[in-house]
């Protein structure tokens, strides 16, 4: 995927007049020493897709084991390692880096900046992820196998595990440092480097959602780092923060973890909201309905995300007043979330809609993410949650939010901006095959899990009674179909574009799209907006 244009057309006018030629390093040096935001964005996206495949293979091993009752392929210990590593890799290795990749590529382009504020730190943020990923994946080969305490790394399990837990903790520290550096970079870029005329309330929604997400990251990643540091000192330095044998409190770990963990959920979904807010207006050929309310709703969701953490812990025991507080606070989040859903629907209302692949994924996102939102509301009710805690209903809920939510939005964003990134139009037919295969197989995989959970099947078990066999078999078949659909996406959609096979993309392939990224040629030149562009009153066009 190259962003370099040797002889770019001058369709972008002012945006690229001074530095069309890229004189930086080439070959492997270009990537290892990359300081260009587009190159680093590409690295993040390729890394996250690789981790998606690794996490996907672990998921398929889980589903293969659960295809029928009894133990067929893995023993229960390995099964616990698979569920733990699947969660960790998908959250920290696939979804989060993918959104950072989008931020690297699109934030400077959308605000008219020449690059990220700290280009070398940007390089460091990315390359820190490689040793962290190697530590995580390599932990499978350590004595005792990979961490198996669940992605939440609950004590006291973490205190009883082998050396791979130390590798896991170290990896999380590295990933946390990378995230904090990335967040600082994004905040400074957005607040300090916008082109003249790009006021905050004229900024594209994707930048707004990332600005808020970056603040969330800065607030909560250090809390996770603190929790796992205390786990480390409990393991090796004689403390007893979470070790009940020494007077520690494992439930305190859960409080600290979920103070990080719930905002983390929004870290993985707010940038997705931003992508959808870019795509829906483009294919409805209307302005985004309620722009200001979208900004306030995003901020409200971020603030509320700090006061709902204990809804993950209703069964640990807490006063009724505590249950009521966390239940009502959680339900309150549905208000700003509904504002966003209604605004997207209102944007589509009476629009001249067309359904190219980005819009299909965006509409699919709205439908399926909303189902995940509703099951979240059901789980927010303490009396119901106490029944459904740690059942497959919860697994279904968060996969509807994170796969149909975050992942579908990422796919929508890839299809939307791929012409800008590569200069090549992807195959619309292949894109639609990918969408329908993903949507259908996703629902085949995860919808039956609602029934399994309601019937009482617990999560994180390698075996189950015969009564759950049918729905598990269906879910496993769906999972393999979903996995194949993603391989198809890479082979049939992404690779041809990276290799330059396909129709040449125009500067603005979507006639309803607005924003500064469409003011530069496709593919985006290596250097863009080297001198701050002069913008029109709406800050969506370059006029000089």
């Amino acid at each position: 995927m190259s962003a370099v244009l040797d002889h770019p057309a001058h369709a972008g006018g002012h945006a690229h007049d001074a530095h069309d030629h890229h004189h930086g390093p080439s070959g492997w040096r270009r990537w290892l020493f990359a300081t260009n935001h587009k190159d680093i964005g590409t690295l993040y996206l390729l890394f996250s897709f690789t981790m998606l495949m690794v996490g996907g293979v672990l998921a398929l091993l889980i589903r293969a084991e659960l295809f029928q009752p009894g133990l067929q392929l893995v023993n229960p210990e390995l099964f616990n390692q698979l569920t733990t590593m699947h969660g960790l890799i998908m959250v920290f290795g696939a979804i989060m880096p993918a959104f950072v990749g989008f931020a690297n590529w699109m934030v400077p382009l959308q605000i008219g900046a020449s690059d990220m504020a700290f280009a070398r730190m940007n390089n460091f943020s990315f390359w820190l992820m490689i040793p962290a990923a190697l530590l995580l994946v390599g932990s499978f080969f350590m004595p005792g196998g990979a961490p198996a305490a669940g992605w939440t790394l609950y004590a006291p399990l973490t205190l009883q595990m082998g050396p791979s837990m130390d590798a896991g903790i170290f990896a999380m520290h590295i990933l946390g440092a990378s995230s904090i550096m990335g967040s600082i970079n994004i905040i400074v870029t957005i607040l300090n480097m916008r082109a003249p005329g790009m006021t905050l309330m004229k900024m594209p929604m994707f930048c707004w959602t990332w600005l808020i997400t970056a603040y969330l990251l800065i607030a909560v990643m250090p809390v996770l780092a603190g929790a796992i540091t205390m786990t480390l000192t409990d393991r090796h330095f004689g403390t007893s923060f979470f070790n009940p044998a020494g007077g520690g409190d494992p439930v305190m770990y859960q409080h600290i973890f979920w103070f990080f963990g719930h905002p983390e959920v929004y870290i993985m979904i707010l940038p997705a909201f931003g992508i959808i807010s870019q795509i829906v207006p483009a294919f409805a050929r209307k302005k985004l309905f309620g722009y200001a309310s979208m900004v306030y709703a995003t901020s409200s969701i971020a603030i509320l995300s700090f006061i709902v953490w204990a809804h993950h812990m209703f069964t640990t025991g807490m006063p009724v007043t505590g249950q009521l507080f966390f239940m009502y606070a959680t339900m309150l989040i549905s208000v700003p979330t509904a504002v966003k859903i209604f605004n997207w629907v209102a944007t589509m209302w009476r629009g001249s809609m067309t359904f190219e692949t980005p819009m299909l994924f965006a509409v699919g996102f709205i439908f399926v993410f909303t189902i995940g939102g509703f099951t979240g509301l059901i789980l927010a009710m303490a009396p119901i949650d106490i029944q459904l805690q740690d059942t497959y209903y919860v697994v279904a809920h968060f996969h509807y939010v994170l796969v149909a939510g975050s992942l579908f939005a990422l796919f929508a964003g890839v299809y939307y901006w791929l012409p800008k990134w590569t200069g090549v139009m992807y195959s619309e037919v292949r894109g639609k095959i990918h969408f329908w295969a993903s949507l259908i197989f996703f629902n085949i995989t995860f919808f039956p899990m609602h029934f399994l959970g309601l019937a009482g099947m617990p999560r994180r078990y390698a075996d189950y009674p015969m009564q759950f066999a049918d729905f598990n078999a269906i879910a496993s078949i769906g999972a393999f179909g979903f996995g194949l659909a993603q391989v198809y996406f890479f082979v049939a959609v992404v690779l041809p574009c990276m290799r330059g096979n396909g129709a040449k993309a125009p500067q603005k392939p979507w006639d309803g799209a607005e924003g500064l990224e469409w003011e530069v040629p496709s593919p985006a030149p290596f250097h863009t907006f080297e001198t701050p562009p002069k913008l029109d009153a709406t800050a969506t066009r370059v006029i000089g």
Partner: protein
Amino acid sequence: MTAEQKKSNLRMALVLASVAATFFVGFMAKIILLNH
């Protein structure tokens, strides 16, 4: 990027980094010192 903007960027980055450091140290200090 002008020298002034670089300086302004660095100042803001240090403020944000100090917020992150405060959360990290503060959370642990709270648990170590105030938990009984």
